[in-house]
């Protein structure tokens, strides 16, 4: 009886020790997790949550320039924004339209084109390394320099493009590329395609390189064409990566402002809502209107990206 009691007590002590060690370990791992998460969480709370909430608050306020006080303005900023878009006041309507054109450009033009380029270069065509490097160069040079060089190339009087067209006897095709509403937006889009392919190409090339060689070799033995290989093997295999670059491109469309600002100063039908936000804040100090524009585009962007994601996920399910 006494022996069994002693062994019970010993067992209890052992259990307690085990629990102590376990809880000590648990505390240590909790502490580790807390320390590791503290900075990103604090960063998120300050620079994401707080700033976005502050933007939301600003979007319902307007400034009295005589007293320096902000007043609650209800939906006035939103109404002003919608009025400006509908009436195309100060080209707001065009800027709104362009934001969605950029969405189409990023998703429907740049991503597919990048995929084609990545696939072609994966075939190890002559100079493929050179082409990869050339395509990536726009990502490592400052956008200010890139747009300046682009502007010089397309300049109407001493630019390379008009000079080339003249020498080829195609003088009738020369024009004021970046100063004409008929060509300015297309020209800015062409610039975006040129400067945007490199990054996507890098990501997609990596994904294509990871496709098991056995699959590609057996397909080759079956005698499929490059087109069939691209459609039936490459695209389904790298679909998750395509989804990633598509979503990145879609969200970026709602933040585009530097390209039109540097190439045309947003003139000739090339502005975007993001550029209007920058102009409102820097030139006019209209935080309320700028915030309302930012919130509106964030909501529309969320809806657009959700729809795109839904479509991408559906395709992924079909292929998995």
């Amino acid at each position: 009886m006494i022996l069994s009691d002693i062994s019970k007590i010993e067992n209890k002590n052992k259990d307690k020790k085990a629990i102590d060690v376990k809880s000590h370990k648990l505390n240590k791992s909790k502490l580790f997790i807390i320390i590791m998460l503290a900075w990103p969480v604090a960063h998120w709370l300050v620079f994401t949550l707080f700033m976005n909430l502050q933007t939301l608050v600003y979007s319902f306020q307007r400034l009295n320039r005589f007293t320096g006080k902000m007043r609650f303005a209800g939906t006035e900023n939103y109404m002003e924004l919608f009025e400006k878009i509908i009436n195309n006041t100060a080209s707001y309507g065009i800027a709104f339209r362009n934001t969605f054109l950029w969405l189409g450009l990023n998703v429907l033009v740049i991503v597919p084109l990048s995929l084609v380029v990545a696939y072609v270069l994966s075939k190890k065509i002559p100079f493929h390394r050179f082409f990869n490097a050339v395509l990536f160069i726009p990502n490592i040079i400052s956008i200010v320099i890139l747009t300046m060089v682009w502007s010089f190339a397309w300049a109407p009087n001493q630019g390379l493009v008009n000079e080339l067209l003249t020498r080829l006897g195609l003088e009738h095709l020369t024009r004021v590329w970046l100063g004409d509403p008929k060509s300015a937006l297309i020209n800015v889009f062409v610039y975006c395609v040129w400067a945007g392919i490199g990054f996507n190409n890098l990501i997609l090339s990596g994904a294509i390189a990871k496709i098991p060689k056995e699959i590609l070799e057996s397909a080759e033995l079956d005698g499929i064409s490059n087109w069939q290989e691209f459609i039936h093997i490459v695209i389904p295999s790298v679909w998750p990566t395509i989804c990633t670059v598509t979503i990145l491109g879609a969200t970026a469309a709602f933040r585009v402002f530097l390209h039109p600002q540097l190439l045309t100063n947003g003139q000739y039908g090339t502005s975007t809502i993001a550029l209007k936000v920058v102009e409102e804040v820097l030139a006019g100090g209209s935080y309320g209107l700028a915030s309302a524009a930012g919130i509106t585009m964030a909501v529309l962007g969320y809806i657009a990206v959700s729809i795109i994601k839904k479509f991408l996920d559906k395709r992924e399910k079909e292929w998995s």
Partner: protein
Amino acid sequence: MKKFTKVLSLTLVAVMLLAGCSGGGKAADGNASNDVAPSVPEDKEVTLKVTFFEAGFGNKWQNWLKTEFEKQYPNVTVELVGDANLTETLTPMIESGVDAPDVYMANGSMWEEWGPQGLVMDLTSLYEEKVPGTDMTLDEYITDVAKDKFYFDLGKENGGVKKYSVPWSAGPMSVVYNVNMFEEHGWEYPKTWEEFEALCEEIKAAGIAPLTYPGKFPNYTRPFIRGWQLQAMGEDKFFGEYKNPTSADIYGDTAVLESFQNFKKLFDKGYIMNGTTALDHTQVQMEFINNKVAMILNGYWLENEMSEAWPEGYRIAMAPVPQGGKVDKPVSFINMPDYMAIYNNTEVPEVAKAFVLFSLSPESCEQFAKLAGGLRPFNYELSDEVSEFTQTCQDVITNENYYQYTDASSNPLMFKSLGNAYLTQISTGEITPEKAAEDFKNEAATEYDRVKTDLGL
């Protein structure tokens, strides 16, 4: 989805409450505590941080100021910070107080917002101080044209006329012409618009483009657009109604339409250099330097901005906008976007004021002209030692034979937009001047009502 909707609704309600409650939070009452006389204490070491927009005017003048101020006050160290992106970086500095300067020199009009909010210091009492090297108070020393911009009438109930900043730089924005080219061809800068058109025809006949401006930045057409509006309205209407409106009707005046029509005429008659609309300021200025165009719409900073590009023996001159309409003299548009202000929470308000006052002396203004090619809207005279171009700039804004004015105003009710979006559309033939004037009028009317509501009028 239901949960998401609930969270979203709750967030929106919370935000609306927050927006409603935090209405008056920004305005500070710090001005009274900083109403000190400019002075420099001799018993302690002081560091004064001066941040400035480092662009067309460079940094030589600021370095001169630092040297001279430190020479006069050996216990003061002036810490200079030049920033080419100050327009973007200044707002977070002033509004958050992080890394905020004691004194800053910037362009724009943000002081109009920051003054009433208590973020920049009320300098009204500084205007009663004697300016070093003169017998005048700052109030007497500043030109009348500049008062339009820097005297901010908040209305009786908000403290009347306040001065939150002092002019840093202000000078002519007008037609700059190539003197050598003009002399070579025997051309003379015209006095009237009829003569101007005749001259443009002569220049065209010589195979040279008469005129250009940075097409990407239609704001450079301001001296012409405002000049035409002033000439069509006459000074009483322009200053009494356009700059200080009592209703938005003035923005539907035929003068606006006339200015847009005149602008279109410049393109229709082929006076504007081909390709202008696609070019930025550097590109058109290079075309001007390379003798491809005889005249350019530009400002007094041009010579300094392109200092490394001018060829040997170049000669350029600033000229007023030709006479026309109801004003019997050629008109000189004075551009005054640059200002100096003091951060309200500076720890050394008296030293900051002393520095600002020190920078206003005629000697300092002379150095600004010599070292930076800049001018200031004060009553001082320049010596002959400054460049020929700077002398012509000074002449344009002081010559009694010209009518000097500015469209700058601190009156929030004035619709200050030049109509840049309309001007680019007119320049490319997208819209007619009539449609532009109609849209301009509607935009101005909507904005006028909004500002009135904001001001509680």
